[in-house]
């Protein structure tokens, strides 16, 4: 036990101070006014208690489901959570081999058109959904978290990730898979055109999938993900082909390109946009071939 004359050691820097000092003469720290570091373990316990409460809420969370008839135009763009049974699933293959999944959901309660809504997945969420054939049965009770799009004459839910469709109770209907309920929307036929045709009347072809050939590769910048083409045998006009992930053909090669003819607003020029998965979009034509 320290006596009245025993030297004090500063709790902050550990150096020796005279017994009557209340402030360390070396570092200036208070020797008497201190807070114990036991505060940290107490805080840790508090944090763990908060974590336990959160996990309890997460495990037992009862979502506030919106009744399907209440999803009207006044709630446009609202994020909603809906519970309903799967009445039908359509997998629509659209132009350019894109897929759209449409799930017809029927709310619990009375059967009426107001109590049904279409749940849509496009792009990556649709691909994720299709990667799990057998995920949904007709009659399954599902929980959907989505954004509402509703206006005059239309109403649907858009799901931003396949993980937001959760099966709460399996139904007994037929399994819906990628190969089964597939319906094909009529694919827009690709338009044949030359670079000269395209650039002579660009608005006519705007945002259409076109097949252009025979073309000649004019330039292949090493560091950039595009190359320039022109109609075979004619150095001008030129067009940028962008988005092709395969091996870019050499300068001078004759090729056929399938892509979307579109205007690049930022830089102000027209280009042929090839989808990154479309490995067959660029075909090198054999020598002498014109078709």
């Amino acid at each position, binding site marked *: 036990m320290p006596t009245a004359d025993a030297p004090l050691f500063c709790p902050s820097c550990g150096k020796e101070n005279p017994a009557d000092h209340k402030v360390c003469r070396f570092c200036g*720290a208070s020797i008497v006014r201190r807070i*114990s570091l036991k505060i940290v373990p107490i*805080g*840790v316990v508090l944090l763990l208690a*908060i974590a336990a409460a959160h996990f309890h*809420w997460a*495990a037992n969370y009862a*979502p506030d489901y919106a009744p399907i008839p209440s999803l009207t135009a006044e709630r446009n763009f609202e994020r909603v959570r809906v519970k309903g049974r799967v009445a039908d699933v359509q997998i629509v293959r659209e132009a350019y081999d894109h897929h759209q999944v449409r799930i017809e959901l029927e709310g619990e309660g009375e059967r009426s058109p107001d109590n049904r809504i279409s749940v849509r997945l496009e792009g990556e969420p649709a691909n994720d959904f299709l990667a799990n054939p057998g995920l949904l049965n007709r009659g399954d009770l599902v929980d959907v*978290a989505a954004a509402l799009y509703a206006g005059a004459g239309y109403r649907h839910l858009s799901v931003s990730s396949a993980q937001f469709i959760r099966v709460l109770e399996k139904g007994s209907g037929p399994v819906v898979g990628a190969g089964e309920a597939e319906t094909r929307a009529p694919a827009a036929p690709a338009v044949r055109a030359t670079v000269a045709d395209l650039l002579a009347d660009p608005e006519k072809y705007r945002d259409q999938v076109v097949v252009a050939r025979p073309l000649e590769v004019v330039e292949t910048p090493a560091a950039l993900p595009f190359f320039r083409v022109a109609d075979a045998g004619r150095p001008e006009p030129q067009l940028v082909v962008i988005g092709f992930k395969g091996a870019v053909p050499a300068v001078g090669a004759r090729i056929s390109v399938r892509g979307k003819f579109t205007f690049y607003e930022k830089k102000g020029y027209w280009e042929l946009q090839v989808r990154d998965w479309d490995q067959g979009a660029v075909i090198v034509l054999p020598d002498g071939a014109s078709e």
Partner: protein
Amino acid sequence: MDIVIILTCCCAALIGVAIASVFSLIPGLHIYNVIAFTMMIAFAAIDVFKTLDPLITTCFIMGLVVGFSVLFTVSSQFFQPCDDSYRSMMLPHERFLFEGRGYEAAMLSGIGSLCALLLISGLFPFVTGAIGVLRQLIRPHIYWILGLVSLFVLMSEWPKDHGVGKTTGQRFADAWVQLGMGLFVFVAASILGLFVFCNTVIPVDNAFQSLMPVFIGLFAIPSQIMAVIAHARIPKQHFAASVDCSPQDIARGAMTGTVGGMFSSLTPGLTPGPALLMSAHATASSGEQQFIIGGGTARVLYYIGALVLFFMPDVYMRRGGAAINISLFFVPETAEQYFLISGIIAVAGAASLLLLGGYSRFCARVAEKIDFRWISLGGALLLSAMVWYVTSWQGLALMGVATALGLVPNFWHTRRIPLLAVLLVPVCLNMAGVGNDVAGWLGFR
């Protein structure tokens, strides 16, 4: 939500904390660099990562961010001391280090972090609506708020040396050299920021990391260079069982940090440094302890608070590099995910705080036994290698330019806050809708 998922997420977050504690040993390394590096590895092994529930990967990243935001200042504090020539502008934790109180400073910062973690996990879930309203209120005004912050940074520059020259020329230089260099740094950093925002110098594939070489060049490498050439000697550190502060210091420091942290997390382009500077004025904060506690609170609120806004049902704000990286593979949508994330923050925060004491002791002992110059040199080389790997030689060149600018405050003894103009000014101009015009005048478009 399934309890197995919750437990798996907890494990993923704890692994994240463990990895963050290792990376935090490298002084100057930024958590967003670590996340970007992790993302590159994840994309390289996409088939493996696709089999994981995105929520688990998200919790792993959350663990990384929490662990890093609590621990990363410890290594900077012990391994990057400044020397005596910086006495006039030494920060409180640096002064503590030279008084043998580095451990106490780390624990004070930890107390600040604890306050922020309690706030994020304990209070935020009950005020999501208010935070959503606050965000909507701030949103249309960000450009002029950032403009005022820039003005404040400029106005708060002051001469730090006390010498008064004998001749008129010397007196003029005494009055203006430091001020002038502060203003020069602000203008040069703004131009560099506008250039980087308008031009993709680095390879297109890694363009999402275009700011990485700039930030490493402006902040990390100059600190390491200065540590290498410093003449500092770190005294033996004392491991205190208590800290020199009062409950009022904790309350006021935490309040200052909360204001600064929330301000920076809700305002794109703003970092906790200038936000804390302003909030310290606004809350009349004073004293070294309040400064260190406030810094710990603001840092955690900025890194974790900004990230948690991404999961908050009434906000869903994508703010900061971690949220941008997570949004590449995960879209938050439901309230139970937010509860899970809040719980994960609390668990990862508890683990980080438990590590903090031992971690600080370890760093203090390493600093006593190993020459910190070697650690800084190794850190500088590692960061340069990382910049080269991610952004190629173009990024390395950009880092070189930024490093030259980042060294100016060190050599002229001005503050480093004006360097943040690299982000403040371009974001401010872009949000005001004149960024393109200004870039055009400078020949960047």
